């Protein structure tokens, strides 16, 4: 347990609860709240203090499909059904089609299966280790990615030189039947841990595609890939 400094911990706990911390500091604070009782109590105290602000948020009924997906996930643990399949988005993602045409076909097939829940996989499925090698169109491997369910993230290691110039390299995850989802910007040197949501690191992540595209500095402004894909690979279960 780390030495608690109340002068630092009180603002840190409050900043964590308010949501002001950037992703790495936020992950560290969340881990600390799990392992350090004094810090956790400070976090819970702030949650209680600020909770009345929630009353100011307008309620809004979610679409019925959300419950249907939850009910399906309850029946088939480990088989998190993707919420939406929107093939039309692919038509707008021009650069993607060349790089991942084969995976699109695979994704379309999986999307059909997703309509009916697949048989429940073994209980250990959620804890599997998943990995992908991301290769350029010429076959040269540029990145190795490992999805670690226990650590809630994907570890990306560059293994080949990429010439991105002044553009950013952004990692995307395309789940079966889904649109490309931004995972994060790659620093370009050394292994990097990027947080990935539970639905993406679930068993469904196997056979999904990881890809890296060139984007304006700061990342794609639209939330969908805008630049060329420099590397991609299918995620496989180890």
């Amino acid at each position, binding site marked *: 347990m780390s030495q608690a400094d109340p002068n630092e911990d009180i603002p840190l706990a*409050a900043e964590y609860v308010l949501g002001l911390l950037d*992703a790495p500091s936020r992950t560290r604070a969340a881990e600390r709240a799990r392992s350090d009782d004094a810090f956790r109590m400070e976090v819970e105290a702030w949650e209680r203090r*600020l909770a009345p602000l929630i009353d100011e948020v307008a309620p809004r009924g*979610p679409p019925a499909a959300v419950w249907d997906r939850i009910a399906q996930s309850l029946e088939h643990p480990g088989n998190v059904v993707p919420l939406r399949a929107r093939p039309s988005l692919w038509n707008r993602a021009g650069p993607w089609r060349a790089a991942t045409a084969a995976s699109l076909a695979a994704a379309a097939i999986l999307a059909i299966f997703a309509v009916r829940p697949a048989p429940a996989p073994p209980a250990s499925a959620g804890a599997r280790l998943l990995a992908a090698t991301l290769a350029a169109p010429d076959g040269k491997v540029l990145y190795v990615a490992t999805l670690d369910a226990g650590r809630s993230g994907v570890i990306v290691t560059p293994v080949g030189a990429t010439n991105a110039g002044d553009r950013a390299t952004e990692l995307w995850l395309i789940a079966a039947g889904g649109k490309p989802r*931004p995972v994060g910007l790659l620093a370009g040197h050394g292994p990097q841990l990027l947080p990935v*949501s539970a639905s993406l690191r679930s068993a469904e992540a196997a056979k999904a595609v990881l890809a890296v595209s060139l984007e304006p500095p700061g990342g794609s402004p639209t*939330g969908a890939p805008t630049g060329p894909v420099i590397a991609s690979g299918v995620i496989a279960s180890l």
Partner: protein
Amino acid sequence: MNQDSARERLVEALRRAGQGDASALRDIYETTSAKLFGVCLRILGEPAEAEDVLQEVYMIVWRRAATFDAGRASPVTWLATIARNRSIDRLRAQPAGRWAPMEAAAHVADAAPSAEFAIQDAQGARRLNGCLDELEEPHRKAIRAAFLDGLTYETLARQAEVPLGTMKSWIRRSLLKLRTCMEA
């Protein structure tokens, strides 16, 4: 609905969900999904993202229901905290260009607190609002925007047109004042 009985029902539903009763999760969803979807949507802006996170939130509730301790947190605070945390995690995982869903926030008009699913802590609300009122207007605004919209220091500073360091010291000072005031 009587707030005490609504709270009791929710606590009971969480207890049943913790024992693996899926119909209890359905009850929790019926009572709370509109509020939690509102929380996710306000932070994420995009309905599709908010739906995805909402699904995750109830799967987390399902897995963690057994750990809910009514002596330590109100059920509504516990649920809303999960929804806020997951939404902010998702937001921070997105590239920088998508960190400010202000356009979206403007579309979601605030309504009067829903009596059925309010935080049910009138005393806490009075104390918080009283203490927030003692802060300077721009500081109070920044704290509300951080909590409700999931904004970062950078966005808050840009919106208030002050340097980042100024915003950080505003908020840290205000939070300490708020704590002292609320503990008094």
